[in-house]
């Protein structure tokens, strides 16, 4: 199957850093290494033909016991062409860190806080990386596969 216009363009533009380009179930997907994510995102956003102006969603997946363990998943949308692309960045368990996209999209701010909160992946260059859904005293990262579902950490105030 031939690649879509977006994926062809990415292929032309980037020599290094692309792991795979494919279209599972007809959805454009690019797997890229962490070193190029900001450049790729800027290219998607600013290329006059592509214009992916939305960072629609951002999350991560914990492929426990596989290496690399995590994958940060971005969903972009282009209002101009009405196309979507999913960009995935494999992240190592040893040093789970990715460059932040806050400078490109303000929406990345809260999404990155959530990924940090749930998976413990940190984002370089994020202005205020703190927990968003859980409370600051919470230990661990609940959406990691090694966090047991029945572990309770009630936040109890002063007892007296």
């Amino acid at each position, binding site marked *: 199957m031939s690649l879509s216009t977006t994926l062809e363009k990415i292929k032309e533009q980037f020599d290094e850093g692309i792991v795979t380009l494919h279209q*599972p*179930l007809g*959805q454009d997907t690019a797997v890229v290494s962490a070193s190029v994510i900001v450049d790729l995102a800027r290219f998607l956003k600013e290329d006059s033909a592509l214009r992916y*102006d*939305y*960072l*629609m*969603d951002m*999350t991560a*997946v*914990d492929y426990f016991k596989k290496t690399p363990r995590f994958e940060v*998943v971005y*969903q972009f949308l282009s*209002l101009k062409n*009405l196309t*979507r692309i*999913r960009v995935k960045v494999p992240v190592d368990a040893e040093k789970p860190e990715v460059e932040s996209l806050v400078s490109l*999209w*303000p*929406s990345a*701010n*809260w999404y990155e806080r959530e990924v940090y909160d*749930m998976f413990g992946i940190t984002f370089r260059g994020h202005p205020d990386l703190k*927990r*968003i*859904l*859980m*409370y600051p005293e919470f230990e661990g990262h*609940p*959406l990691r*596969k090694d*966090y047991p*579902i029945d572990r309770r950490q009630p936040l109890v105030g002063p007892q007296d």
Partner: protein
Amino acid sequence: MAEPRTETMLLNVGPSHPAMHGVIQIKAELDGEIVRKADIEIGYLHRAFEKHCETGTYTQCFPYTDRLNYVSPLISNFAFATGVEKLMGLNIPERCSYIRVIMSEISRLTDHLTCVGASAMELGAFSVFLYMIKAREWLYELVESVTGARLTISYGRIGGVKADLPEDFEQKCLEALQKTREVLEEVHELLSGNRIFYDRMRGVGTISAEDAIGYGITGPFLRSTGVDYDVRKAFPYLVYDRFDFDIPCGDHGDNYSRYLVRMEEMEQSIRIIEQALDQIPEGPTNVDPEGQVIAPDLMADLGKFGKTAGLLQNEVLIQPTLQGSEKRYHEGISTALKTASLPPKEQVYSNIEGLMNHFKIIMLGHGICPPQGEVYCPFEGANGELGFYIVSDGTDQPWRVRSHPPCFPIMAALEKILVGGQMADIVATFGSVNMIAGELDR
């Protein structure tokens, strides 16, 4: 004479506040009446939806999706079901698509009615709230007659819906819609030209189209700025491409525009439902993984058909609500392989094969196993794009379910919208955000 004091004051709004429908906290820094800084704290209603989905089967995710947006639960139900169907490559029957459209639009109506009603109440228009809740009640009654519940409906199924529409649904639905339309006209007369309402809403809580896009905002909130992005038109799903409807857009991006957009969207939803009721075909409402339609009399396990033939004739007739019996839902279901759709309840309660089929789908380690892969499935929720990103590892339990909540980006942008405005406008703006803590915190 002493110098006037000039320091700012910190005011906590929420997490438990009468004007905050939903538990969030706004730490507002006030300079007199002007908001200088607003720190938004969310997460008070976090129930680990995504974590729970990983521990159960695909079927068991449905009750959780009800509790995402509890004002329009049907949309999240169908969005999740459609995501899994995409993973499995299932094409659902036409009738089921129409039912999903009708029920989604009813949900959109209830959502907008709640939002507009509640935000009007917070500005003092209490009668509007009562009128709109009255209309919502008629729609909830419809939902109840179809699904058996008002809020926690769990009506979606992978490859179909729980049950067909009741026999008198069309007539009841048209009546309810007509009455709702009258309520909307009444509300228009009461609010749209009302001096107090207008002054409190116009020019308040303004956001530009660029900012809205940058923050990833979708739905009525985005359309109030003039961008006509609606998933139903941009990426038509189910059978939305068969209906004639408009995407209302505002031009100011303020609270009043959002109010008008929501009012007009309700009118458009009514139009869609009326067309769908007109076009809806007869036929099965569920599908097997191969997409085959098979005659109901072949439903029983063929190897044991001789033994169960007598039993099948003693079917129990039940309603989806399990309250009494009227209509046979047996014919509506076309499961051949019995590995995707739950068998009809008449069989589950009347013969051993039905019961076994039921448990084969419900039991851990046996149920629906989509092939390995991942999918992102966008739907137009009442507040904007509701997306499910589902990763399957080939077993009966999802490896990862991510729900993209439509009001999350709006809440991220809320500080920008509130700063520079009046303290009293927090309530009006927050009302028009229509934050649903269930889907925000998941």
